[in-house]
């Protein structure tokens, strides 16, 4: 079963609207990956990176709970065709969402966490929020995201999945 995605010109502006909504309703700048730092800071203050005034990031874990809730909604309604979109599988005939690929999820997740904290932001904080503010740091980080992604797409995934 194929399902058309929500068109980019509708979805993109909706994502962009999170920026003013968060600023006006919560006085917060959009970002997601500080939640990792926050989560760990609940359990340990060492290394020093985790000993900070973590209250400022508490909202991000609430935001993340909203994201997890949506995931659960799609899980229970079984409306997750986008995972298995046949059109996309024609381009990449790979059964990616399989537990056999556990090491990719674990290792890739590690890089996402390490990289996001090292670069001081992720796709949300740098690509969307930072570039909306025209922050030079965010343009550099976004270039980095694409350099990393292109390396994987052209040199690593073809070997991992032999396509």
């Amino acid at each position, binding site marked *: 079963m194929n399902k058309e995605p929500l068109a980019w010109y509708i979805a993109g502006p909706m994502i962009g609207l999170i920026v003013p909504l968060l600023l006006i309703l919560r006085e917060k700048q959009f970002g997601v990956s500080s939640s*990792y730092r926050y989560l760990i800071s609940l359990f340990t203050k060492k290394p020093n990176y985790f000993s900070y005034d973590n209250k400022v990031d508490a909202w991000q874990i609430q935001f993340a709970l909203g994201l997890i809730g949506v995931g659960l909604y799609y899980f229970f309604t079984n409306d997750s065709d986008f995972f298995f979109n046949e059109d996309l599988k024609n381009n990449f005939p790979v059964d990616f969402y399989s537990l056999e690929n556990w090491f990719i999820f674990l290792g890739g997740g*590690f890089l*996402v966490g390490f990289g996001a904290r090292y670069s001081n932001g992720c796709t949300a904080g740098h690509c969307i929020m930072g570039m*909306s503010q025209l922050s030079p740091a965010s343009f550099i980080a976004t270039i980095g995201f694409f350099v990393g*992604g292109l390396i994987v797409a052209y040199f690593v995934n073809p070997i991992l999945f032999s396509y």
Partner: protein
Amino acid sequence: MKKITNIIISISLGAFLGFVLTESQAISWYRIQEMFHFQSFHMFGLLGSAVVTGALSLIIIKKLKIKSMNNNPVKLKDKPLIWKANLFGGILFGLGWGLTGACSAPLFILVGLSWKLGLLLLIGALSGTFFYALLKDKLPH
């Protein structure tokens, strides 16, 4: 009361983002591969129009001096420019993004959608964060 309102707002905005990212298939590994192979405009249009909308909103907020719900002026902090960290960290993040097809927000959606895979991602991301904290002083910033 105020606190509960704030929590509800944060959860709702997270859910709003979750629905849009899922319905637009931006959480799919296949969409991310397609993007990095320049096979479709979808993801570029999505990211581009999100940034344009965000930037225009910020201009409007500034011009009209729109205040926050608590009647405070909207203050923006610039991301500090630490170019080595921004770039090297960015590349590492990009490697992870390309491998898993999930950046930070889709990662949390996956925790709900497919908890075994999602938890692997989350455990990975938290270990990565912890490892960064251990190495922080030794890394170029």
